[in-house]
Structures are given as C-alpha cells and as structure tokens.
C-alpha cells in the first residue's frame, strides 16, 4: 500500500512538473515577481517599481540574431514607455555554460555598447523563465499592475517585422501598452514569432 502511495505521489509530481513547464502563463494570469541580478550588480524585483502601471518584460539575450535585431527597438520601447509607467525589464534566460556569449560580463559589455537604459537581469538559476512559459528569445510579456499583482496582458513578439523596423505594420507591444494606458480593450493579445530556443 505504502509503495503504491509513494508511486502515486511520484507519478503525480512528475506529471505536474512536465505540465507546468510546457504551459507557463496565459492572458489574465498573475505573474510571479523575482529577485534577479542586474548588470549593475544590484538585485531587481518588480515590486521595486512602486509607481509602475505595468511592465514590458522581455526575455532576451546577446547571442540570438532575432534578439539582436530587436535591440534598438527594445531600447526605444523603454525610452517611450518607462516615463509613462511601463518600464522595460529585460531578462537573460540562457545557461551561460552553454552560451558563454550571454555571461554577466558579456551582458554588461553589450548593454554599454548599445546604451541600454533598462535593467538587464540574469535568470541565473533558470527558475523564472519556465514560470512565465518563455521558450525563446526574444519573448515578451506585457504585465499590468493590479491589486492582485502583475497581470499578464500580452504575450509574444514586439512587432510583425524583425527584419526592418520601417516596414512594421503592427506594433503589437506598443498597441497593447497604449491600450492599457488608455484603459481600452485591444485585440491582439498573443502573437508568435521565430526565436532562439532558451539554452539549458
């Protein structure tokens, strides 16, 4: 009996783990806060931003060409929306043993080269991105601050043209944040884009 019980518990745990890894957040879920190290040595949490109306959380890295293609647009998002209460929080989710180009040192160098004005954090023990359900870089979550906590309002890509910012027709993230700021509903809450799988 005891064995069966143990097996049952074990089986349930295993199944649950697999499930939770595959799913992550959906629209309307409350996102977890975190304590992650920034490139400046400080530890950053969402709760540090007392005045924030929300966040543009971006899982990104140095080494993925799609992430690189969006670097300037990520910086532009922060410049435009941090003053309006929606700062960009970038999180680097890769295992740096697999991707040495994403080490803290390399993140610092890249941020300096590009003049990033947003926090660029490292998910060092790779515990945060699976909770969000991020699978690739770049992968964006727009969160809205509410009494319940930060609620997921948009998941996906920044816009619809990674190649050329001037040819973009749909600025998915901007549309979402603008709508949230104006308190109006918006249509596109989830989009898909090619990206680099997060490296374990």
């Amino acid at each position: 009996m005891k064995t069966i019980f143990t097996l049952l518990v074990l089986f349930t745990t295993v199944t649950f783990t697999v499930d939770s890894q595959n799913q992550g957040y959906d629209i309307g879920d409350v996102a977890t806060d975190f304590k992650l190290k920034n490139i400046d040595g400080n530890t950053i949490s969402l709760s540090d931003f007392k005045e924030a109306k929300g966040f543009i959380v971006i899982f990104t890295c140095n080494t993925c060409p799609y992430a690189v293609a969006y670097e300037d647009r990520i910086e532009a998002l922060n410049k435009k929306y941090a003053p309006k209460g929606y700062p960009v929080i970038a999180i680097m989710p890769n295992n740096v043993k697999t991707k040495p180009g994403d080490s803290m040192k390399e993140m610092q160098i890249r941020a300096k080269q590009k003049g990033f004005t947003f926090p660029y954090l490292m998910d060092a023990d790779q515990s945060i991105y699976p909770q969000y359900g991020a699978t690739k870089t770049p992968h964006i979550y727009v969160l809205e601050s509410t009494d319940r906590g930060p609620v997921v309002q948009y998941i996906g890509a920044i816009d619809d043209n990674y190649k050329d910012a001037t040819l973009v027709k749909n600025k998915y993230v901007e549309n979402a944040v603008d709508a949230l700021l104006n308190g109006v509903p918006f249509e596109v809450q989830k989009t898909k884009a090619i990206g680099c799988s997060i490296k374990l």
Partner: protein
Amino acid sequence: MKWLLSFVIFLSLSCKPETKASINLEVHDFEGIAPYLELENSKTYVVNFWATWCAPCVKELPHFEALQAKYKDSVEVILVSLDFPHQYETKLKPFIKKHQLKSKIIVLDDPDMNSWIPKVNPQWDGAIPVTLIYNASKRLFYNRTFTYEELETELKTFL
C-alpha cells in the same frame, strides 16, 4: 577567328559553375513554402525548420541527412532554412557547401511570422528546431530535437 571567340566564350561559360560554388537557393515567402507541407503522394516527408545560427538545429542536421540517405526511395527530407537574407551568401551557402548537404533545402523569408507560424502547426511557439513528418495518412509535429535513433524510430511509425 570567330570560331575561336565562340570557343573562348563557350569555355568561360562552362567553367563558371566550377569556379564559383554556385548554389542556387530556392527562397519563398510562406505562400511558396506551404505546398511543401502538404504534398500528396506515396512518399513520407520529413520537414525540418532550422537555421545556421541555431546551435541545436546544426547539431541534429546530420541525422536528417543520414535519414535521407538511408530511406531515399520512400522518404524526402526537406530542410526549411530560416536564415537571414543578409546571411545567405556569408553563412547559409558556405554552410551548405562545407557540410555537402544532400537533402532538399528551401529558404523561408517571410517576416510576418505571426501570420504563418500557426499555419505550420498551432502548437508551434516559434522556437526552432521543429520537425513535421507527414504522408498521405498521418501527420505529426515535433517541437523537440532528435538523435538519429529517435528520428528513425519516429519515421518508422509512418512507413
């Protein structure tokens, strides 16, 4: 003299393919790729989405090549490259040449990714590599990487 000139021209023309590795890439937007995802005949198709910048893709690529070599009569491997257009000459073509890829390669260049990713498979979130195996009676989408043994085991369920 005229004859000599023609001969010289003929020589220069015929030399061309050898002097420069002229790999002609077949580049399409999604509309051009879509037919390759629903070919209907007696073959089983193994369609792998990859790119030279994707390390796990490059790692499993030889398995697809080996599969194509072993099952050349009943299976067609199609490698759909998602390389960036500005790297066709500098990365993709040299890669194809260096690794002497034998499988069919087509290149997908369509930046409006949200419009076509769900058409490949609703479960695909956009991370690569992914693989689609299909034939007239069965169709499965794999959001994962493969060893050769795993790939062959999957393929055998279609044959």
